[in-house]
């Protein structure tokens, strides 16, 4: 590493080990669920498209994430909020 790189690492950038930990936590979530890393994005897009035709659904609030599951490899949870008015 050159001096400027070291200086940048010493001031401001998060330490490499923190970056590694965050990346690993994400990777293992997908590995454990047996899903490729952008699978959730793809599912989300498809669902958003399908929900567009329902005016009572607030598509901007759709929340989607992977969680662990007892009976299957993993579970994709989707929250679909209904509009207030």
């Amino acid at each position: 590493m050159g001096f400027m790189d070291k200086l940048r690492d010493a001031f401001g950038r998060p330490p490499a080990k923190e970056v590694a930990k965050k990346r690993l936590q994400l990777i293992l979530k997908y590995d454990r669920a047996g899903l490729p890393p952008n699978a959730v994005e793809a599912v989300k897009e498809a669902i958003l498209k399908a929900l567009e035709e329902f005016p009572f659904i607030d598509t901007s609030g759709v929340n989607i994430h992977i969680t662990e599951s007892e009976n299957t490899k993993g579970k994709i949870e989707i929250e679909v909020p209904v509009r207030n008015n």
Partner: protein
Amino acid sequence: MADKVICITSGKGGVGKSTVTANVATALAMKGYKVVAIDADIGLRNLDLVLGLENRIVYDIVHVVEGVVPPEKALVKDKKTKNLYLLPAAQTKDKSAVKPEDLVKIVEELRDKFDFIFIDSPAGIEEGFKTAVTPADTIIVVANPEMASIRDADRVVGLCEAMQKPEPKLVINRLDPKKVARGDMLDVEDVLQVLSLDLLGVVPEDKNMVSYINRGEPAVLFEDSIAGKELRNIAERLLGKEIPIPKWTYSEGFLEKLKRLFGSE
């Protein structure tokens, strides 16, 4: 004893399975337990080198499977360490030469004659791994504090669960306290947050390791080896002794910090 047949595995290659196997087996034998180490890395024989026994091999595990000799006859007795025996892998055959049921049978035949049976697994998660893990009642996963190794370790844990084996215990190998202090390397806490396994030991990076292997003398034989000390502690923990695991923290001095910033390393 529940922890009698112990398989050492990792997923990723080169992380220290054979080193941990040879050293922990030697440490237990030094304490008077009768120990056999089985090299299950068929085709890539290695454990004999770490133990310095390569010149004394006559028969190997494939001869046993083929019925040429009974398991006891193929064992190589360690000269330096009393009570320690090696069942060597074959160097010329491939992984399919020993099937899970073959290794189960060999372990059953040796079980009553030994206090501990170690199985050094090949890298990977295919046949050879499954064969090595099948007879074990305790599994140790070795990982380096490094991304690919941890990811592979997690795969192995999942596969062990699918094989209905008890959850593996973790040995972190080659932790470098200086790199941890600089924030360059994952520390013990980080690894445990990601893997959440029972921690059996943390073996530090030891610059003398290559020379121990070159001489065929395991690190545990040397009082002053930093890795050897932790490897002896792992043996004690397998015996049920509660020995605290060192945190391996290191604080960089001010001068050292400056030197790192301006130096060329």
